[in-house]
């Protein structure tokens, strides 16, 4: 639901310098909460939606300018079959989630086509106009679910708990554009990852219909989320009204249906006053749900704030109790610096309240080359036993950013059920003296947790790629038999040996629970024929890959 404004009087009541004692009484730490983003406060005061990032992004704005001479002058993801269909957000005006899913769906293309439920994501958070809230839902595995399960124009999830069909494990944040020609980060992300979610001021009446072009002159908080799918450096300034200072435009996918612009797309001038300038742009990527099985987390709301110790380096940790015997395989956290240097420690059989107690079972380092939400794999999975208390400890250095610790922290304007408990999240300036977040500074952090997740499970099993269903006619002279030819190729990302493929079918329009098993074919079979159909029959098919260990992957879906 859109933000219900509450005013800004109490915004970031805990902002500023907060002093508290370490849990072990080993010394004083001076923790500083990140200041609020002024644009967020302004938007909150003006009841604008969507809202920009609630926490200060100045560290990202200080990033060195990024230029890439190798970028082409024109590019269009559509030409590479790397976009999904144009959606229509009517009758509800919530475009952020459409822009996000425009990005996420694009990253699966061209190998796999997905259509995720904006409705379900909209229902998952009261703050679906805020990027961080949506990422929080996605990273918590509350989303995405299939559009066919919870359609936009349907009645919602109907009380059914739909499991996430993919696991969003990485989100790349692109800092706000600092100028009209500060575009290379976005361009590079489009080529390397897929469509980029960005926000802009938008008024449908200002579309210059002759060229389906748009040049907004009003700066300020964005009110429309779009997906940037390409660009043309030579798109003439004469094709805009009002005319910008120079040539060049991004090709954007809107969510106003196919009748808007050029079949749902429009050109936004590089000189537009708001596109990607006031808030983070982002690209989301996800793994198959068949892989990581358990998400240990205390931050389902999302990263609403950060803190630090007036230094680029900080330590943070979470203690979890395992609920399955699946091995620990990965951890995830946020970084708001252009580059993040991390060292991760995994401790097994820890003592409550002491994150670095127990046995050190894994330690590794790495570098995050972009700000955002990142999942890093353990070099080797760590065996777990049910009900085992373990700790994930991270030392993160974020050059240029003095607030390395990502937090799920109550802030004004962010409506969510923030909650925390002792022995969950811990912070430290040096890795030696640790503080339990909920026990310091009175109630300042009583509902605060560290955004640090641990994942148990196995390597992902990707679905068959390039799944196509074609209706063919088997001419038997005296009969015509209608046949669906299902074909696919092996997904190149699978690391485990695929032993078989399974084919399922449902009648088009029926619920996904009606899928029926049709057949299992060998790993070298990439075509399956469904025979005995009638001319007017219509089916949707799913094909899954099965590993030699018996794990069945996510389905790819296509209809005849």
């Amino acid at each position: 639901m859109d933000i219900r404004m509450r005013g800004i009087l109490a915004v970031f009541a805990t902002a500023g310098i907060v002093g508290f004692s370490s849990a072990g009484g080993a010394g004083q730490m001076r923790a500083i909460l990140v200041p609020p983003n002024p644009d967020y406060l302004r938007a909150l005061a003006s009841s604008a939606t969507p809202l920009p990032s609630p926490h200060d992004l100045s560290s990202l704005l200080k990033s060195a300018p990024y230029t890439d001479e190798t970028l082409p002058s024109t590019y269009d993801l559509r030409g590479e079959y790397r976009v999904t269909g144009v959606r229509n957000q009517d009758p509800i005006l919530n475009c952020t989630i459409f822009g996000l899913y425009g990005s996420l769906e694009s990253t699966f293309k061209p190998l796999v086509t997905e259509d995720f439920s904006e409705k379900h994501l909209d229902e998952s958070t009261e703050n679906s106009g805020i990027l961080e809230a949506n990422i929080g839902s996605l990273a918590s595995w509350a989303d995405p679910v299939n559009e066919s399960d919870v359609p936009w124009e349907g009645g919602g999830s109907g009380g059914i708990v739909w499991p996430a069909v993919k696991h969003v494990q990485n989100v790349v944040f692109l800092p706000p554009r600092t100028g009209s020609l500060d575009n290379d980060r976005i361009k590079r992300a489009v080529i390397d990852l897929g469509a980029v979610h960005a926000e802009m001021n938008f008024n449908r009446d200002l579309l210059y219909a002759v060229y389906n072009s748009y040049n907004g002159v009003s700066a300020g908080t964005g009110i429309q989320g779009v997906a940037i799918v390409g660009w043309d450096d030579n798109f003439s300034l004469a094709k805009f009204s009002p005319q910008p200072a120079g040539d060049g435009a991004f090709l954007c996918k809107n969510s106003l249906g196919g009748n808007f612009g050029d079949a749902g797309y429009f050109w936004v001038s590089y000189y537009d006053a708001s596109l990607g300038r006031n808030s983070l742009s982002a690209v989301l990527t996800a793994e198959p749900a068949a892989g990581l099985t358990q998400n240990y987390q205390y931050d389902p709301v999302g990263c609403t704030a950060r803190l630090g110790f007036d230094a680029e380096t900080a330590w943070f940790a979470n203690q979890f109790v395992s609920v399955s015997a699946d091995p620990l395989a990965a951890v995830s956290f946020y970084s708001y610096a252009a580059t993040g240097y991390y060292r991760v420690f995994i401790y097994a059989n820890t003592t409550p309240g002491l994150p670095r107690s127990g046995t050190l079972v894994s330690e590794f380092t790495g570098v995050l080359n972009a700000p955002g939400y990142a999942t890093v794999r353990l070099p080797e999975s760590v065996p777990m036993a049910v009900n085992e208390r373990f700790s994930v400890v991270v030392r993160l250095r974020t050059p240029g950013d003095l607030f390395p610790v990502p937090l799920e922290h109550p802030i004004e304007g962010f409506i969510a059920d923030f909650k925390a408990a002792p022995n969950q999240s811990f912070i430290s300036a040096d890795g030696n003296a640790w503080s339990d977040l909920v026990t310091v500074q009175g109630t300042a952090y009583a509902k605060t947790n560290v955004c640090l997740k641990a994942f148990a499970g196995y390597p992902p099993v990707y679905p068959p790629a390039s799944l196509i269903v074609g209706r063919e006619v088997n001419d038997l002279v005296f009969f015509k038999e209608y046949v669906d030819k299902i074909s696919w190729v092996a997904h190149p990302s699978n690391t485990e040996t695929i032993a078989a493929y399974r084919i399922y079918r449902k009648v088009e329009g029926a619920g996904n629970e009606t899928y029926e098993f049709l057949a299992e074919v060998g790993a070298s079979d990439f075509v399956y024929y469904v025979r005995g159909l009638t001319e007017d029959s219509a089916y949707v098919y799913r094909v899954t890959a099965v590993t030699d260990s018996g794990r069945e992957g996510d389905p790819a879906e296509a209809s005849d």
Partner: protein
Amino acid sequence: MRKSAFFIVLLLAGMGIAQAQTLEVDVIGGYRTLKDTTLRGIYGNGYVVTPTLSLAVSKSLRIGAEYETGFIRDAEIGMFDDPSTLKVRGGHLFLQYGQRKNRIQPYLKVGVGMFTYQFDVVRADLPALEVKNDDVSFIIAGGIRFVILKNMFATTEFKYGALWVDSYDDKVDLGGLRLLVGIGFGI
């Protein structure tokens, strides 16, 4: 078509009964083509055998009946090479005219055929597809009879019978040419 065929049969039979002089039995068999090119590409040509019974109604005119069978062709058909069978058989009533000169008697034969055709396809894990229908068509033939003994003769015959039947979305001709040889006896 069926009515007219039935009428012709009655007429021929009546003539035969009224003026029967000799009864002959012969068996001829041989090569039979399949006219429809699509089906011929699948099943190819085949062989038939035709027992015949005829009555002389005058010195040069005979009426008779024959039954053609043996055209049974198995082949794989369609996208999936399903096993299938095409069978065509039928009874013919005919009027035969020929003048004997010494031991040689060339003749012409016209008649009507009541054909049965059957087509079936066996599909794995699916019900079999089957067509079984009757249809009527005309036949025309020409041949030479060589009298070997007083009551024994050899025959060679060239016969054409058309059989247009409905396929799924068109008509196909299950007829074809027959090149037949045989032997017969007078009774």
